[in-house]
């Protein structure tokens, strides 16, 4: 009896994944729990261990294809075993499939292209009769199968929507050129001032150029290049838009004097290094933030229609840039319970693993407050976007020596840093947000020796 390898659900909200690499080929043997493939979700990359020992009988989902959780990816069993037919689940979003490598195209092009599941006779007939593109019909039957009802619902709704989409962009109250928009008679280009002279009404023996229906997506002219969205890019876009739609964002900015922190850093970085820990300023920001979150629990919260949910744990999410690829926000759980050493170690660990695409799904879950260190790229202050469903995010600017007026009205050179706090104005008002930010500033300004 062959064993199926299915696309696991790697997190509560992770419903699909992309097969990035098959580590074994069809026909190769594999031990139970040995790594079989790598997958990529909107949050993490991970290796999937083999659920059984045996021979890879068949790889169903080729590299580059995105499928929903629960989809059968491959079969493992005894060599020569005959597989039972099972309808494959529909691909999550076929459009975002990365280019498929030549060798996997050879494997099973037909199956890869057509994963609609079982098409019943009546669905096939309706689709043929009514010219329905079944890939556009949402399946509600068993295993996502498209039912007769789904097609009828699609036709009912689609027929209302479709004509609007394909209808002429103008409505003609009668026949003849008199009633046609001029740009359709002459072509839009000829309506420019230079071409106006030529724009004479067409005579019967000199028919007008055929009207060009306006197409929304113009084909790329020379030099333009379309970069297809990666899963991560799409998710970032979704999250950012969603966040801006969800919370009224307000950003407040304060500055901190980093003199004492810098002194502490210089004194301790080698000590930490001896323990194998790379100390960074981010650890200080994280420590100060954790302390402030304890003092202002309202910031460590989420908005809900029923009320503001205060989170008992301080789980700090730290944004890690992956360069052009995007960014990811792994979480340090219970950050308020960690010493500076513990925080530095945790930050180093998640940042390293994030850049190596080795985060686990749990590493990106459950954050209650986020920190983004945009100062690493030279930015002084910013208006970060809240990482939903959190209440606020702290943006950390570049540490920069500036001339500041200090006690006794003297001008001194101090390492200064702007801290930008973007908060959800539904939960916090300006005064409470400033109180929280002032607490962070206070901790940093007065860092103990």
């Amino acid at each position, binding site marked *: 009896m062959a064993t199926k390898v299915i696309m696991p659900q790697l997190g509560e909200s992770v419903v699909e994944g992309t097969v990035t690499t098959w580590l074994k080929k069809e026909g190769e043997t594999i031990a139970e729990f040995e790594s079989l493939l790598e997958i990529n979700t909107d949050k993490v990359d991970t290796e999937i261990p083999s659920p059984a020992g045996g021979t890879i009988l068949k790889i169903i989902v080729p590299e580059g294809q995105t499928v929903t959780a629960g989809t059968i990816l491959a079969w493992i069993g005894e060599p020569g075993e005959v597989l039972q037919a099972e309808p494959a689940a529909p691909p999550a979003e076929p459009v975002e499939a990365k280019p498929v490598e030549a060798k996997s195209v050879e494997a099973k092009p037909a199956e890869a292209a057509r994963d609609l599941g079982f098409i*019943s*006779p*009546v*669905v*096939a*007939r309706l689709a043929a009769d009514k010219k329905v593109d079944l890939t556009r019909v949402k399946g509600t*039957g*068993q295993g996502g*199968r498209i*039912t*007769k*009802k789904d097609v009828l619902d699609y036709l009912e709704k689609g027929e209302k929507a479709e004509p609007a989409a394909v209808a002429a962009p103008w409505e003609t109250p009668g026949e003849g050129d008199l009633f046609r928009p001029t740009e359709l008679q002459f072509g839009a280009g000829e309506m420019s001032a230079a071409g106006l002279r030529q724009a004479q009404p067409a005579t019967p023996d000199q028919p007008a150029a055929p009207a060009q229906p306006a197409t929304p997506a113009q084909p790329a002219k020379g030099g333009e290049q379309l970069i297809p969205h990666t899963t991560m890019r799409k998710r970032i876009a979704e999250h950012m838009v969603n966040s801006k739609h969800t919370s009224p964002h307000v950003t407040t900015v304060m500055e901190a004097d980093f003199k004492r922190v810098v002194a502490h850093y210089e004194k301790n970085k080698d000590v930490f290094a001896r323990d194998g820990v790379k100390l960074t300023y981010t650890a200080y920001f994280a420590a100060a933030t954790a302390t402030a979150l304890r003092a202002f629990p309202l910031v460590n919260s989420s908005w809900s229609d029923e009320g503001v949910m205060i989170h008992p744990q301080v789980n700090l999410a730290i944004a890690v840039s992956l360069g052009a690829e995007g960014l990811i926000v792994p979480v340090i759980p219970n950050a308020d319970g960690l010493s500076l050493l513990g925080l530095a170690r945790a930050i180093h660990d998640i940042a390293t693993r994030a850049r190596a695409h080795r985060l686990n799904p749990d590493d990106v879950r459950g954050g209650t407050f986020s920190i983004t260190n945009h100062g690493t790229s030279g930015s002084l202050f910013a208006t970060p976007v809240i990482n939903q469903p959190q209440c606020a995010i702290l943006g950390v600017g570049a540490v920069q020596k500036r001339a500041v007026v200090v006690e006794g009205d003297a001008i001194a050179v101090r390492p200064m840093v702007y801290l930008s706090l973007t908060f959800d104005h539904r939960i916090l008002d300006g005064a409470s947000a400033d109180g929280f930010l002032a607490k962070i500033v206070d901790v940093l300004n007065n860092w103990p020796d």
Partner: protein
Amino acid sequence: MAEITMIDAIRQAMDDELARDENVFIVGEDVGKRGGVFRATVGLFEKYGGERVIDSPLAELSIVGVGIGAALYGMRPICEIQFADFIYPAFNQIVSEAAKMCYRSNGEWTVPMVIRAPYGGGIGGGLYHSQSVEAFFAHIPGLKVVIPSNPYDAKGLLKAAVRDPNPVIYLEPKKGYRLIRGEVPDGDYTVPIGPANVTRQGSDLTVYAYGMMHYYTLQAAEKLAGEGVDVEVVDLRTLYPVDKQTVLESVRKTGKALIVHEDNLTGGYGGEIAAIIAEEAFTDLDAPVRRLCGPDVPAVPFSHPLQDWFMPNPDKIAQAMRDLAAY
């Protein structure tokens, strides 16, 4: 209109026909003085006398053989087989003589005979009093096979069967004799042999059933309505010749078909309905045609838990409906 039971409706039909046509007579075991073991003929012996309501020996071959002979001489016999389980000694008479007479004589001789037989399980009858025999006879051209599911049809179909010029196997769901009640009009009426009856309109799936299973199917459909599944129910009523048009019209509407009978699955009547649908409504199907039937074991067990295991019931039917609706 009075609400009466199935058994009352069957008795009324025979009473009416005995009164209407002097050629009609009843023959069977204990149908006379005893009034039948299910009391189907009670009172008729007293009313019409021993020459028209005849107690026969315990010999089904002779009951049917006498019926065939009398029918050939212009009589209209109603033969009662006490339990359908006992019909097999008469099988040869029914299949080789009664069914073929009209064909064999090029239409010169016909056998206008009704064979009534209580069938079906769920009554604690065990191996010899629970059998379903419809599939044997629905296979035989020259016979008509009728199974009513309610008092109105029971009376109307039996009267139509008595008046039919050819042999009719009239099977009675005995569990429903006193359980199923319904309104029956006074006066003469018949229900034509042939047409099926859509007893519940629905759009999500069609269930085909007859007899006791139709009664249960309606209950299950009611339950499913509460769950948002709209079930259409077709009471086949006449198994042979089957009403293809109604069968196909319904499945063309719903796209899904379930057939329920208590007879064993393999070679059961449901296979015929499934085949008709597969052949003539293939491109209307949105799901595999399914059957919920008695299991392929030699008999309905006497043990009550095992009998329950054997018999389809409203819960089992409802579950099969849910499964098919979800497909």
